[in-house]
């Protein structure tokens, strides 16, 4: 705790580096609590979406069942779920003090996340362009883009966070100062993934069956 920049080897590296220092412990707990608040935030957005689903001003608007197509959403889901898995591998290597491998897996996580984001942008473009389903076209549109868009914004933040951490720590290896940072960033990424599972179920699967 005295020297945050103390050099470690895989032998001296503690078992839970994210919780070894008091700062790390605080960060770890504080971030879990923050995710608790985020859960309520998304719960409120889901409730709003369910209340306004298919709520459109006139019958010439497209509804959820008309627009959503499972193949696209399936690819997106696979990309994001896989990115969660790769971040688990990254943390596995972080705990074993294998910095290069952690970097590699995190980079893969970022690439998968970016691919997801690309598909999501295409998806939104597709709805706007082909179905005239926009943020302002109906209450359904507002609720859909707000819920899925909030998730997308979380993905953007998560990607920015990972990239910033990777760049900042590119050359200096793991220590007890940055290990908790990598760890909470990956917690955040898992949370984003869990929210997507619910979006996949509530928005897309339930949308398909009407």
């Amino acid at each position, binding site marked *: *705790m005295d020297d945050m920049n103390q050099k470690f080897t895989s032998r001296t590296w503690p078992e839970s580096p994210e919780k070894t220092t008091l700062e790390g412990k*605080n960060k770890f707990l504080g971030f879990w609590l923050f995710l*608790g608040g985020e859960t309520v935030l998304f719960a409120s957005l889901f409730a709003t979406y369910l209340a306004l689903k298919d709520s459109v*001003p006139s019958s010439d608007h497209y509804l959820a069942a008309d627009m959503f197509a499972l193949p696209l959403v399936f690819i997106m889901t696979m990309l994001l779920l896989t990115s969660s898995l790769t971040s688990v591998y990254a943390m596995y290597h972080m705990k074993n003090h294998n910095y290069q491998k952690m970097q590699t897996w995190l980079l893969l996580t970022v690439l998968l996340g970016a691919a997801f984001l690309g598909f999501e942008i295409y998806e939104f473009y597709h709805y706007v362009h082909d179905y005239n389903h926009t943020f*302002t076209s*109906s209450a359904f549109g*507002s609720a859909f883009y707000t819920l899925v868009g909030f998730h997308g914004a979380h993905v953007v933040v998560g990607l920015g966070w990972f990239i*910033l951490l990777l760049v*900042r720590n590119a050359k200096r290896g793991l220590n007890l100062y940055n290990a908790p940072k990598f760890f909470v960033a990956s917690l955040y990424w898992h949370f984003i993934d869990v929210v997507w599972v619910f979006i996949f179920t509530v928005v897309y699967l339930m949308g398909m069956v009407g």
Partner: protein
Amino acid sequence: MSTVAQKRGFLAVLWDYLTTVDHKKIAILYLISGGFFFLVGGLEAMFIRIQLAVPDNDFVSAGLYNELLTMHGTTMIFLAAMPLLFAFMNAVVPLQIGARDVAFPFLNSLGFWLFFFGGVFLNLSWFMGGAPDAGWTSYASLSIASPGHGIDFYVLGLQISGAGTLIAGINFLVTIINMRAPGMTYMRMPLFTWSTFVASALILFAFPPLTVGLFLMLFDRMFGANFFNVSMGGNTIIWEHLFWIFGHPEVYILILPAFGIFSDIISTFSKKRLFGYAAMVFATVLIGFLGFMVWAHHMFTTGLGPTANAIFAVATMAIAVPTGVKIFNWLLTMWGGSIRFTTPMLYAVAFIPSFVAGGVTGVMLASAAADYQYHDSYFVVAHFHYVIIGGVVLGLLAGTHFYWPKMFGTMLNETLGKVTFWLFLIGFHGTFFVQHFLGLMGMPRRIWKYLPGQGLDLFNMISTIGAFFMAIAVLVLLYNIVITQVKNVRVGNDPWGDGRTLEWAIPSPPPYYNFKQLPLVRGLDPLWIEKMEGRTEMTPAEPLGDIHMPNNSFIPFVMSLGLFIAAFGAMYQIDWRESGGEEFVWSLPVLIIGMLITLGSMAVRSLKDDHGYHIHKEELMDDTDKGGKE
């Protein structure tokens, strides 16, 4: 410490406060800004009461009246009551658990500056085209239709300050869980720490629904969304639900810390251990839990149906049980105690019947069928002022007198304190007791004027006179504060003489590292235990060693300033788009620049290592003589 501060220039002190991460200084910042907004909200209340003093009055216009009542409620809840509670939480909770600071000193500062800039933004509405005017609840149908930028100020200002509150809540939770001194188990924590803990948990889970509600309204008003636009498929009831899912826990966020302050005061000045400590803790947690189950009692007349109304009515009445447990425990703490009627104790004693009165009308309002009669009448106004003033504000005033010596090292004048107390108590009951009857006689709330000869004249006049008593009481308190600080008579560790908890074991104000050596806690009321064994100080739990301290930072200020700037851009881009891109061309750049400032300072925070610094053992030993005076 403060003598050193006085020798430094004004700018140096200002810079110190702009960059401080010390919980004790942040407490003072919260106290000053919360106190300022309390005066603003009080002034708005006085305008309301002057307008209603006589029938058919023309003191303010109808539009201005709507703005006044909206800003009075919003200011008092978000910008006065909560920050003032945060002031005491910051000043006292780390000391009560034997910690050297909060878990996240940087975030503590960020939380304050977000609140501050949000509050300033909201109040700038007065000077920039009109304040919000849809009530503090800002129901969607009304607020969507409100012209001008008033509601935009409300939405953006609360969004910014709400983020600060959420951060503060997380910070206190982690502080209390992780930073307790050796021996300070959960069931040895003072009640104020316990109530801060539960209130922080409520903040964590209650503020996100408000955030979402505000976002929906922000999108509707500023970016053309249709959440509340019924003709586009929207539904205004969503706002009511989101607002009250936040709004009801919010009243417990306010009242629980006040309960905590009173518990500590009553036990201190009765010279007795708090009666039924475990039951008090359990009741606090239970109130916090039930607080999330009752939001629809604000919506009985919305038309949710008899089943929903019945469930929420029963849940609401259930809260009376743990609250009753607390009332009896306070009474039994005093029972047989050696009571000293100091100013804080007077407030505590007056609080009990006042709050019970508010609780009784609460149970009346909880009866859904009867609520159809009371709804939107002055009966409701009387009820919530009885719980908010009779509970929260009395708690804040009690806390101000009780903790003033710990925060500033001086003692507020007791005689003036008692004058404040009596004026305030008489004024409070004078203002609001009669409003019960005004409500039962049919006077609706939020009306601008009433006609003469309807039997409402006398009680309204009494109510206004009462309000003046409260205003004078606050002026006496301000005078008291000024003369106390001018006289600057320093006090020792335990100026009340009967301190039971850890904050009274260290100098007033405490050194910036709080505890030279972390104290060993051997039971509930740890200082009292030591006193009973003939010691004046705590037994240290560790040898004297280096202390790790966080660095000051200007980044929280800049981060919050960025959002403040961006909010103007977000607001005026409405006019920019409405004018077809002709006017307000600066709005979008301002929005982007503001966001860049915030995101940029977040990046700086992330990229720049901040390891803090150490106070070395030798310096601490030199400090020994400069510690507290006994």
